[in-house]
């Protein structure tokens, strides 16, 4: 993007903000791919039918939620421990 200097300051600011939004979206996409792979392995263990079995769909949902719970729990615990250490 060597020609962005052709743009005026306002446009450059708009583009900068747009780029940030797109980067945030790209990070979101990457997380979704990560969870899909992880939860596929956890939940779709048998052979593949033409549709999900009853438990498989709810497993996928739980898998994502519990991962986020785990992540939040770990962050909380780390914060608590840092509060106590000298």
């Amino acid at each position: 993007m060597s020609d962005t200097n052709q743009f005026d300051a306002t446009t450059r600011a708009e583009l900068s903000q747009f780029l940030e939004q797109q980067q945030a979206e790209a990070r979101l996409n990457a997380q979704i791919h990560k969870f899909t792979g992880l939860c596929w392995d956890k939940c779709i263990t048998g052979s593949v039918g033409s549709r999900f079995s009853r438990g498989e769909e709810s497993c996928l949902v739980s898998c994502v939620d519990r991962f986020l719970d785990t992540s939040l729990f770990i962050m909380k615990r780390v914060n608590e421990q840092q509060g106590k250490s000298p």
Partner: protein
Amino acid sequence: MSFFGRSAAPQPSQPQNDAQRKEAVMASIRQEVQGANAKELMENLTEKCYSKCVPKPGTSMSSSEETCVSRCMDLYFQAFNIVAKTYTTRLHKERVAMKEAEASSF
């Protein structure tokens, strides 16, 4: 929306003004993000469905292996959508909860 095709935007014969150039830059960034997303999905799907459907690679693909891959693809797309929806819903919930926590602490 085409994942894999090139941009169909025609090139104007006169020089573009700033607004058009800005739109072109934005479109190009958008396409890059969407393209990367589609590519990642295909690569992951291929890996998972190969693992699942071709446990013992033979000298050619059997029709049952191909059927399996076909079903697996559909399921993987569905799984992707379920995960995407669950994740974005949860993110929204956490964001709302954070805002409420901030508001109530004043």
